[in-house]
């Protein structure tokens, strides 16, 4: 069943058109890896889906509700965002809040959840990413990998229907990359729907169920992960894989 369906997503900045008509379907339970060279529009696509960028045109159906990606009411955007999670490349933890407060804030301030219940939920999710011991620390006291794990716990705490990952390991050293990828791998096994923009080819190969390959603002090829890596249809995909694996 399609959880998310994007039609004809177009977005341009001053420097040119970044997305030239994206069509994308994500089914419930999919772990979708979005691959492609830098500048192909992967991050912009992800940001448009959560209205962090407003598209020039395009339509999205999410969980049965259709949204105009080029204009929508604040209320609809807020309602959509409450059903989604987003993990940023640069973590974006609230730097004035402790780890625990980072995770509870979306519940208490965003949804009016009782503080005690929010803290129980937060600790459970922090446990899941191995960060419960650091609940009282501030983000600046953590390594990048630890911050990103907290950011994942923050995204999980609000029980989203889908989590978008925007290059979650690109700012990390190789060893820290592993600890974050392990967490995402564990989530993938638990049935959460995820869209992961990544440069980690081996991760995409091992963990994702579907792969989307983007270049120059277009989706060149998409399909299930095995087929994509073993038997790519497009010449351009073959070249990309040859260079990157």
């Amino acid at each position: 069943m399609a959880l998310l369906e994007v039609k004809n997503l177009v977005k341009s900045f001053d420097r040119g058109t970044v997305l030239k008509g994206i069509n994308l379907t994500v089914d419930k339970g999919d772990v979708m890896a979005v691959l492609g060279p830098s500048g192909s529009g992967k991050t912009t696509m992800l940001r448009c889906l959560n209205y962090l960028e407003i598209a020039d045109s395009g339509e999205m159906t999410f969980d049965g509700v259709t949204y105009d990606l080029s204009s929508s009411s604040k209320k609809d955007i807020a309602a959509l965002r409450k059903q989604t999670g987003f993990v940023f490349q640069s973590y974006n933890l609230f730097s004035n809040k402790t780890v625990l407060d980072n995770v509870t804030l979306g519940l208490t301030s965003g949804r009016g959840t009782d503080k005690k219940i929010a803290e129980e939920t937060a600790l459970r999710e922090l446990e899941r990413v191995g960060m419960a011991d650091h609940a009282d620390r501030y983000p600046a006291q953590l390594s990048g990998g630890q911050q990103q794990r907290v950011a994942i716990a923050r995204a999980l705490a609000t029980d989203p229907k889908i989590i978008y990952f925007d290059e979650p390991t690109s700012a990390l050293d190789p060893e820290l990359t592993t600890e974050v990828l392990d967490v995402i791998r564990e989530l993938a096994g638990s049935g959460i729907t995820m869209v992961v923009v990544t440069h980690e080819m081996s991760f995409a190969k091992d963990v994702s169920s579907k792969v989307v390959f983007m270049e120059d603002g277009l989706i060149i090829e998409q399909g299930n992960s095995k087929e994509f890596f073993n038997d790519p249809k497009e010449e351009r995909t073959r070249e990309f894989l040859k260079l990157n694996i």
Partner: protein
Amino acid sequence: MDIWNLLIESFPRIILPGLAMTIPLTIISFALALVIAVIVALIQYSKVPVLTQIARVYIWIIRGTPLLVQLMVGYYGPSAFGIKPNGFVVAVIVFAINEGAYCAETIRGCMESVPKGQLEAGYCVGMSYPGIMWHVILPQAFRAAFPALGNSLISMVKDTSLASNITVTEMFLATRQIAGRTYQFLPLYLEVAFIYLMFSTVLEAFQRRGEARLGRYDHGTSGS
């Protein structure tokens, strides 16, 4: 009269108006100024149409005219309508409006220096704009603005001496009255300068302690 005796005798007569007038005037005005400043900074940060333009005009006028002139206008303005204003009340309002304009610029600048990702992260966890302002952006902006706001507060203590021009008997006017009677201008003005310095020193100590407290979260090793 012996200078030392004069200084000792006049000390309570200067510091009492200091405690009764200068300090309340400073604290009340500065508190109101901060309220004004946060509202004006939020309006500009959020780019609220019309109100943003009004905020710009307010800041333009206040920063472009002398505080002393503003006090005079505040004091003699109501007289034009047959109202005899209370000097202290006028002083509080004028100082608040004046300081509010400067602090608004400080706070706005600091809000804009908070990385945009903080706002985006707030949206993505389902927080409302006011919720993000309150829990995330303003606390970080205040942390960054704290030294500059401390500066403003210290200047304000000294600026309250201008209120002597609109009949507020704060420390400076009290000193001037004693000096006028005794003709010992220099010693008395040095004495009041010393008292201002004491007040400022206390405030500076508070500022440093406040900064240390607020600094918890942005140092890698402290505070955990």
